[in-house]
């Protein structure tokens, strides 16, 4: 393991300069880069990256690296926001992950995006441990921006429960994921369950999925990670007759069913991401914040697995309470 200073953020008056470190493993080849936290509330993302640093360090010591495997892990580039409990850049509230590919002579967050992007360029594969623009809890999954620049099936090699294919919206074109792809790195975003607090189990699963990916490529000893195995078997997704990892379900984001509420109030959730639900099942209730009277019952519109759930006790009307992966009909 080699700890290298990638660049220093020295952008705010009366704040001390902050070095941004990368941890390099294996050969000098640029095989895989992993980006952890970019936003200031991405504690889980930083933690997953930190777990990876530890795992890679052990694997490297054991001699498990293939000769041409070179890895970079950047646990955090969002310290200036993290240390003051802000999600975005503290002065102007801009989001570094909406500034890629960056610009070295531009505004502050463009410059930071540029420095991050320079450090991450030239890798064969890139993994961004990302958080979503809606506050909520997810089923752990790998997400690919469907740009046509890379084969989407490669996402199956992470062995995570779901591979989500997203068609880019205009606002996606300034993210790390999108631009990394344009610069010829095959890019994956990995989402674990949480953002601003640590969920050990899904953190472990996310970190293991990166090792699993490299193992599938023949660059690490091949082994289905324990966290993934446990999750799959709990969900009944692990058919013993099938090769490991082949039960990852591919889902197109546009096929997700958004489940909305009409009323505002307190949200009481009865189901959680990864739950399989039947049409008509009671998923949640919106209760009156003054009397606890039930204002609205949220029911499953069809059979399927919950993929995303609104996070937070208060909810406005017309929000997305859940997103559901509809069960495929037999014979389809």
């Amino acid at each position, binding site marked *: 393991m080699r700890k290298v200073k990638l660049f220093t953020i*020295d*952008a*705010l*008056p*009366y704040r001390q300069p902050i070095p941004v470190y990368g941890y390099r493993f294996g050969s000098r080849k640029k095989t895989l880069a992993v980006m952890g936290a970019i936003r200031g509330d991405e504690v889980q993302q930083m933690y997953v990256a930190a777990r990876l640093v530890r795992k890679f360090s052990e694997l490297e010591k054991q001699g498990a690296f293939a000769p041409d495997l070179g890895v970079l892990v950047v646990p955090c580039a969002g310290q200036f926001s993290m240390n003051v409990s802000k*999600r975005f850049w503290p*002065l*102007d*509230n*801009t*989001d570094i992950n*909406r*500034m*890629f*590919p*960056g*610009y*070295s*002579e*531009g*505004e*502050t*967050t*463009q*410059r930071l995006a*540029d420095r991050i992007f320079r450090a991450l360029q030239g890798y064969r594969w890139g993994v961004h441990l990302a958080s979503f*623009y*809606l*506050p909520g809890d997810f089923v752990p999954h790998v997400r690919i921006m469907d740009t046509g*620049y890379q084969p989407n099936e490669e996402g199956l090699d992470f062995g995570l429960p779901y591979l989500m294919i997203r068609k880019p*919206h*205009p*606002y996606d*074109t*300034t993210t790390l994921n*999108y*631009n990394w792809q*344009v*610069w*010829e790195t095959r890019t994956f975003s990995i989402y674990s369950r949480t953002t601003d607090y640590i969920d050990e189990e899904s953190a472990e699963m996310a970190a293991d999925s990166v090792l699993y990916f490299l193992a599938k490529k023949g660059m690490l000893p091949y082994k289905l990670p324990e966290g993934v195995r446990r999750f799959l078997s709990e969900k009944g997704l692990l058919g013993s007759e099938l090769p490991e990892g082949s039960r990852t379900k591919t889902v197109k984001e546009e096929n997700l069913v*958004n489940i*909305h509420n*009409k*009323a*505002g*109030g*307190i949200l009481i959730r009865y189901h959680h991401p990864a739950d399989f639900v039947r049409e008509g099942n009671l998923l949640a209730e919106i209760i009156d*914040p*003054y009397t606890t009277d039930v204002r609205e019952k949220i029911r499953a519109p069809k059979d399927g697995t919950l993929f995303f759930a609104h996070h937070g006790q*208060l*909810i*406005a*009307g*017309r*929000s*997305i309470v859940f997103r559901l992966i509809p069960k495929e009909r037999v014979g389809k």
Partner: protein
Amino acid sequence: MIETVIKAPLPVGEALAIQKNRIAGRDAATRRLAIVTGTHGDELEGQYVAWQLARVLEEKKDALRGTVDIYPALNPLGISTIYRGLPGFDLDMNRIFPGSRNETMYEYIANGIIRDIKGADLCIDIHASNIFLREIPQVRINEKTAKQLVPLAKLLNMDFIWVHSAATVLESTLAYSLNMLDTKTLVVEMGVGMRITQSYGDQLITGILSVMAHLGMLAEPGPAVKQPVVSTDGSVSFLNAGASGFFMPQVKHGDYVKKGQLVGLIADSLDGGTKETLCSPVDGLVFTLREYPVVNEGSLIARILGGIGTNKKKTAVPETEQADEKKSASSVKGGSTAKRKAGLAAKRGGAKR
């Protein structure tokens, strides 16, 4: 008449409602002008225009033909909380148009706004920079729509028309979405965040009356308007801070400066030193000047409109309203990877990278 455009319930005993002031003259259904503002909660210049225009039109009611809809607050929660964005939501409101009825609450609201404005003969979307930068009164036009919009923009009595380059990310603005629906929309940018500059507001109201006369919405001659400077991206120079500290301007907003002239200093208040002296790269008009003293490395200090052919062409998207995309510009789609990268690289500063 005050009307509710679209509404959604908030969690605890309140609704988020977008309202408009509908002022109808004779033949109300024949023509419609939409004046919108308040997308960014820290921009208040449009509040004066909304207020004063309603009074002026009330006085001119006999001459009014058609309908004027004034939408003073597209983001009421932002305005009431002194917050630029949408409270509790990551994306800038001007990145979620045309919205959707099947996504989040804010996208539902955005979609309701678009449906309501759609079909107007003209929409004027008033912005006020942000709290960091002060702008002269100007119209900003995406190069894709310049041909149809520049002639209308010239009627608005603004000082400057900035035709900026296109970027995919800008396809989710209110103006772009409406223009794609064949509802002509002009973006006005003037003044500074969290303040009201009444003289700029009066200047724009003169322009609005002039454009109304042009559209046949005033049964009287329109007022005379000034001729704006029309820019291509090629003549705009940027001055960014190279160090963090406190900006001490040495010129006034709207001044003409000479190449090499001192525009301002970055002060270090801890040791009494000067971290940087910032000089103008060209002869020209300081049409944007930093207002908020705290600067980071990279903070925009000034934009200077240089004379024709005096400096190298530089493509850019204006920072204040398009703060998160300039130069990234993934408008380059298809073609080979090398071409795409070249296109992107060119937009981010070309050979320097």
